[in-house]
């Protein structure tokens, strides 16, 4: 499993996304640049320039037509993937920490930071894919304000039935995307331990959280029940569910400000693989020399990419042994 090293960013990575076909990787970093790469060989396709601040988040529309990015310059930008043109800029009062397309691509949510007297919000924008991509709604169709604890990340459940948001205080809540009402709020992680990432399973019935409390949890999108818990020994920044095989990948590491020594060993800068169902740790992949900030898995489950504080993206295509590995009970299940 020799990784492909994508070294095009000058500062730490903030998010990576594969497109739905898995042939492209989009990466954003604090260096204000959005990069697109071929996932197969790591060649850079191009960059999307225009942001004035660190880019915190990126998402690809399901049909790979539009790219949305959110940045510390208080904007969400929509890009034409093919041409590299910026087709729309939405201005917000504070930085945008997460953007996510709905499963059918017709809506985009944006999580804004709580700062300067503004409460954190989740804004929903309607996306139009007509002839003229620049023809987009000017105002969000919905705004959810987080009164208690600001949302850090958010995403869409199956059928865009719920918006799931994770909060700074370690809780997860479920909103109705039509009315903006909070349906549920569950304290799933230790209190006051921020949740840094949520990612959904391919069918979007479950999602995984990655928290500063050194654990990741698999939750049901319908009722926010905790299905599985994956304990780690380091604060987690990102977690992803692999299709094809029942694994989850967790990434994290001692935050740079908390590291007293620079030894990579101490930092635990490794991607950890856990079995999704049995909650056992299966293996680790080393390589980064800073904490892992983001992880994404190829939609067909044949590769994954991780982006680190060290400014590198590492793309790993899985070997045969990865696909062959199976617990005895799983094998039995297969035979049935």
């Amino acid at each position, binding site marked *: 499993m020799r990784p492909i090293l994508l070294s095009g960013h000058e500062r730490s990575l903030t998010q990576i996304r594969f*497109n*739905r*076909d*898995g*042939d492209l990787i989009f990466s954003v970093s604090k260096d204000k640049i959005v990069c697109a790469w*071929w996932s*197969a*060989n790591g060649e850079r396709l191009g960059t999307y320039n225009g942001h004035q601040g660190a880019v915190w988040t990126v998402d690809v*529309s*399901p*049909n*790979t*037509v539009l790219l949305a990015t959110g940045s510390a310059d208080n904007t969400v930008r929509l890009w034409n993937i*093919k041409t590299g043109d910026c087709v729309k800029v939405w201005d917000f009062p504070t930085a945008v920490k997460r953007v996510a397309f709905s*499963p*059918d*691509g*017709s809506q985009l949510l944006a999580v804004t930071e709580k700062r300067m007297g503004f409460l954190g919000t989740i804004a929903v924008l309607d996306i139009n*894919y*007509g002839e003229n991509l620049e023809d987009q709604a000017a105002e969000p169709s919905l705004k959810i304000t987080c009164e208690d604890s600001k949302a850090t990340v958010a995403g869409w459940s*199956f*059928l865009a*039935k719920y918006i799931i948001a994770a909060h700074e205080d370690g809780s997860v809540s479920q909103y109705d995307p039509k009315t903006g009402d909070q349906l549920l709020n569950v304290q799933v992680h230790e209190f006051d331990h921020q949740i840094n990432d949520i990612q959904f399973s391919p*069918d*979007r*019935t*479950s999602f995984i959280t990655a928290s500063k409390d050194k654990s990741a949890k698999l939750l*049901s999108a*319908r009722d926010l029940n905790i*299905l599985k818990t994956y304990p780690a*020994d380091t604060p987690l920044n990102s977690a992803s569910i692999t299709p094809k095989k029942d694994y989850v990948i967790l990434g994290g590491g001692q935050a740079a400000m908390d590291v*007293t*020594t620079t030894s990579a*060993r*101490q930092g635990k800068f490794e991607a950890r693989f856990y079995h999704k*169902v*049995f909650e056992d740790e299966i293996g680790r992949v080393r390589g980064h020399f800073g904490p892992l900030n983001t992880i994404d898995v190829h939609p*067909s489950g*044949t590769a994954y990419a991780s982006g680190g504080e060290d400014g590198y993206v590492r793309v790993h295509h899985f070997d045969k042994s990865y696909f062959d590995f199976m*617990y*005895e*009970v*799983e094998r*039995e*299940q297969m035979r049935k």
Partner: protein
Amino acid sequence: MAPSFEQLSEQDLHEEEEEEIDFSDLKAQFEVKADEGLDTFVVIDGLPVVPEDSKQKLIKFLLRKLNTVGNTSEDAVFMPVSDKGMSEGFAFVEYETPEQAVAAVKQLHGVPLDKKHTLAVNKLMDIERYGREGRVDEEYQAPPVEPFKEKEHLRSWMGDSSARDQFALYRNDKVGVFWNNKSNPPENVVDRAHWTQLFVQWSPKGTFLASVHPQGVQLWGGASFSKQKQFPHPFVQLIEFSPLEGYLTTWSARPIQVEEGQPILTNDEDGKNIIVWDIESGKPLRSFTSHDLAAPPTVDEDVAPKKKVQWPAFKWSADEKYVARMLQGQSLSIYEVPNMNLVGRTSVKIEGVSDFEWSPATVTREGVKQYEQLLCFWTPEIGSNPARVAMMSVPSKEIVRTRNLFNVSDVKLHWQSQGAYVCVKVDRHSKSKKSMATNLEIFRVKEKGVPVEVVDSLKDTVINFAWEPNGSRFVLITTGEAPAGAAVGPRTGVSFFATEKKGSTAGNFKLVRTVEKKTSNGIYWSPKGRFVIVATVHSQSSFDLDFYDMDFEGEKVEAEKDLAANLQLMKTVEHYGVTDVQWDSTGRYVVTSASVWTHSMENGWNLHTFSGQTLSENPTEKFKQFLWRPRPATFLSKEEQKQVRKNLREYSKEFDEEDKYAVDIANTAVVETRKRVLSEWVAWIRREKEIQAEEKDVFGLPEDADSPKHARDAPIGGSDEAEAVVEEIVEEIIEETEEVIG
């Protein structure tokens, strides 16, 4: 359940004492102060009944007695007279001060006045308090006898059917006691939050677990680790058990302030730092102020020497009958236990005494009829007198052996665990004081006249030394000069020594082998001997542990065939950031640990077998302490032990089977849970799918509602189905030739 001292109220702390101890006297003292004035009065009972005429005579006679303890006068004595003109047989007396009144009660009560009459002296306040009507029952009522409560067996852990060992684990703010289950996760016995404030410590035979709190020391024991004893030494910082668990020494930097109403501590303890407690009764035997260790003499007089606490301040003899303390450079005070009187009523004056050690066992010496306790001490060079190492026998205080040494910078005394040898490690400097070397002078205590053997002087300084428990071999670590400013410490050499084979008695000590170019600094012998771990601890860069066997059962190196050892390195293990190495008391397992007290990197503990096979790794957040529970000495005689060793194979067969069975059970259990978990998961997925399909129906959404809206979009990207094959054409220039045509 959480038994933290914080949550214990004052009442909790003293509940036992309150049941047992009568506070009335203390309370009385206290109350008296509120009622100023009356406390100078005493009531004297038991006087002869005399006619009024002879009253003055009686008073005068009485005053002679009364004035022996204080000052009073004729006017201050009031003797009431009845209607019949006779005295009543009692009198009221006023003293000048309350203290005198107290003294009168103490000293005159029960003193005979003449043949017929005995004085009964009580304080007026007490008569008021207790003597009033209704305060005392007219009829005697026997105090209720508490029903006998069975106490928990303090050694219950020894009855474990598979002879497992227990250990205490202190991490974060929780302390737990666990059974060691080899490679399986340990089985919890108790786990309590805030069980201790500073640290925990087992007593030397494992009976008690001590927790240390600002209010004092608490001992826990029995199967459920219930409260056993309390020693209310405020702000205690260090504790030390005597070897047979009879006594406990506690120390606090802050002198004790005895507060009013403290039932255990008396005024004797006020202003002291050290208390020697009797564990059985829970009462202090005697208290002391601590001597601070004098700092090494500095040339610069202006620099205030740094104070250092001398700990253990009190060192116990092996039989626990004596305890001794050294006054640096002046004397040794040897106390008899339990009365805590100085042996021979005086301290032993030893000019310059720098350190001393008791023999860890009562030594049977050749040519000596009565075996006494031995202790070893040394004094540095003073003026023209050489440095001296001497051995003293206690209680006779007779010096058994002394040896003079020259050019000494420092001396360390190492007793072998049976007291058979004392190794005196002498650090010597050359005349110019520029280079250092180490000498080992080994006293053979058991042999007649205590001969001293000098082991060849080692060129380098010895930084660590350890005897094999119950053996006659030792390991030492030498180091060269550290290059100035080097990041890594100097290289060290590990040397193994053994005796020559020579009939029944042990021959001379000879070097077996030296392993050079190590970084090791710690020596950890198995408590049963034979195996030893040489480790690098507290190091930033290296953390290796070498497991050695001193009696390897294989081929022996020719050059070493005369020595009673066959050294073999069994295994080398690494444990990042290791700070402590601890053998269990049976010598079967070793735990290496990295404590947050030293550094905060990868704290936790690893369990190994004696041969270095790692059984489990337990990274633990905020890990502080790992302590094996010590075991008391075995009850089996030498013969019985031999018998066990002989039939070991049969016994172990039994245990092997048990182990195998346990593994089988565990494996099946794991498989079963996995099966269950997997089927639950599959069921959950199926149910979700069903609900989702229903919802789609209800909303009238198409099957592929979640897929991207191709219809409305520009057609882009490949098909979703078949895996995309990316063809990549890579051109490589294999050869380039240039030809000039023409």
